[in-house]
């Protein structure tokens, strides 16, 4: 009996130390991402006027209006200081223009919506009691909406990025998939060299390749166009897709195809009716992988696009350029990261599988 208890203690000690390590690592992974996410919901006021900055965005903002001889004064509750702080114009009156400006100011700085007449109602209370406090609900997705409004090109850039990704998938999956099939089923000369192309194509900096590509694409009439960009992206994606599709096809026994050929179809038919349907989930994963690669790429796009930037370029420029407000930039970043993260999670089984057969 004593031994069983000892064994159990030992076991639980081992397990709990394991989980402490795991939790620690999980924390390190989540910690910075949490703030990226958190900042993307903060208003300008929270981001720039409160210090230390709040760690989580609030859902509402508290305001206070009082008045003196000059006129009305607007205050906002500063969480870091724990007190109301002056907010907006030095003073304002009941004039319609003033109220409209105030509405815009509250909307821009605090992400809260209130109508001029709404402010007027609050002022009535001030007139009666000398001061009023009121709470407004924050418009939670305001940064996201604003990012797409102020960043002139963002919605169109998203469309272009999707197009680039679509073309890249089409090109790299068809060309890479054919080679991957040859890898899985045949022996041929130069197999190893082709396999190593995944390394070769990464050795020369992509930015530099982009320069001569400008001229090549211009000659093809594809300069500054999604299709042209996807030709460039496909180089790296093809080498990747050869590896992925090769491992996908290898997992399907040749005997399946041979059986189909015995039962009256040729090699193409066997591929079409047997192998392709079985490989479909793997190929879909491969497509998502290409999507992520293309969707996330920024530097070639910076060089190769001029008037038609992709979405990552827009986000990049908003950050590196001067106009970026960090809460807006984080909103753009989250918007850009979301599809890539979702796809990665969908295909995580295949990511592990594709590296399973890796040998250099």
């Amino acid at each position, binding site marked *: 009996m004593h031994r069983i208890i000892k064994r159990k203690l030992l076991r639980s000690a081992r397990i709990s130390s394991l989980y402490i390590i795991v939790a620690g*690592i999980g924390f390190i992974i989540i910690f910075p991402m949490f703030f990226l996410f*958190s900042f993307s919901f903060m208003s300008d006021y929270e981001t720039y006027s409160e210090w*230390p900055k709040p*760690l989580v965005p609030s859902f509402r903002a508290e305001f206070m209006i009082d008045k003196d001889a000059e006129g009305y004064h607007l205050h906002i509750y500063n969480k870091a200081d724990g007190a109301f702080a002056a907010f907006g114009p030095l003073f304002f009156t009941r004039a319609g223009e003033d109220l409209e400006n105030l509405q815009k100011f509250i909307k821009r700085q605090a992400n809260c919506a209130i109508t001029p007449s709404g402010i007027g109602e609050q002022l009535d209370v001030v007139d009666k009691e000398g001061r009023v406090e009121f709470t407004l609900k924050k418009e939670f997705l305001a940064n996201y909406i604003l990012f797409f409004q102020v960043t002139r090109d963002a919605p169109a850039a998203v469309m272009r990025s999707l197009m680039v990704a679509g073309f890249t998938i089409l090109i790299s999956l068809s060309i890479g998939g054919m080679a991957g099939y040859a890898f899985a089923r045949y022996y041929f000369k130069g197999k190893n060299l082709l396999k190593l192309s995944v390394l070769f194509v990464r050795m020369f900096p992509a*930015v530099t390749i982009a320069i001569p590509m400008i001229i090549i694409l211009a000659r093809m009439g594809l300069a500054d166009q999604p299709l042209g960009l996807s030709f460039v992206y496909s180089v790296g994606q093809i080498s990747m897709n050869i590896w992925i599709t090769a491992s996908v096809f290898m997992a399907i026994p040749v005997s399946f195809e041979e059986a189909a050929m015995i039962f009256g179809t040729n090699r193409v038919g066997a591929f079409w009716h047997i192998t392709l349907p079985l490989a479909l989930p793997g190929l879909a994963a491969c497509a998502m992988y290409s999507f992520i690669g293309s969707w996330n790429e920024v530097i070639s796009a910076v060089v190769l696009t001029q008037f038609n930037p992709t979405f990552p370029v827009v986000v990049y420029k908003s950050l590196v350029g001067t106009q970026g407000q*960090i809460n807006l930039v984080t909103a753009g970043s989250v918007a850009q990261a979301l599809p890539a993260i979702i796809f990665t999670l969908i295909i995580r089984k295949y990511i592990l599988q594709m590296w399973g057969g*890796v*040998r250099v």
Partner: protein
Amino acid sequence: MASLNLQTILDKETRKKMIPYMLIAPVIIYYFLFWIFPVLNAIIESFKSIEGVWTLGNYIHIFKDPVFYRALLNTAFLVFFSVTIEFILAFGLALLINTKFKGSSFFLFLAMIPMALPAVAVGAMWSSGLATRGWMNSVLMTFKIVDDAGKIIFLAGGNIASMWLIILIDAWQVIPFVMIILLAGLQGIGAESREAGYIFGGTKFQVLRKITIPMLKPTITTAMILRIISAIQIWLIIVMLFGFNRIPVLLEQVVLNVDELGSDFFERIGMALSVIVALIVSAAAILYLKVSGSFEKEAEK
């Protein structure tokens, strides 16, 4: 028409042998058009002056520039430490996940997220965090670890301190990737080999050193080479945090010349730099293969 002729000329056996070559032909053509051609183009241009005369001037310009040597040194520092640290931590993680504890698949799921994050998002994440009034200091102050006067000024450190910051940030994003490659390799080994090691007298450490690591060697080589290649080409995060020319590294200099400065002259400098980078990358990869190969021979004695 051509295919008809082919069919009559070639006998069935030869045609069958042709199939794989026909399947890989598009890849070869594609690589020629969109990779080898522009690369050759860039290499040739790097040896020409603006006027189109053959010259070594671009290279000489680089070698005379003191920033180049700083960039070279910084890159070497970055590659050596980041690859080493990433490998050790990733290997530890892979061994951990491979024990298949309850929730290990969820943990794997979590670990893959940094891998999926776009470089730009990573840049936004850290620049919003490491700014003097960023979330790092906010957290420290909220939990009263530092006061307002004691804020840490992350981005104003010296060269070496900034490099360590970059190494940590790069490790944060890249460790999952290395871990996944190693994990896949570990799962390919199978438990029996290790169990046999335990039965035939090995301690955990001996089994790791004499069985697991040697059997994992091809995977380790793959992971290391891929990492070395991309570590030499780190730049985006540096530019997003520090801007150009503050912490010069090789590729940041390439981008600076090619994109930021952008004139015909600087483009050629950038191309020459790229050729140098490519040479360094291949040299590093070959060196790594040589070194790891010689270790292996030593172990055999």
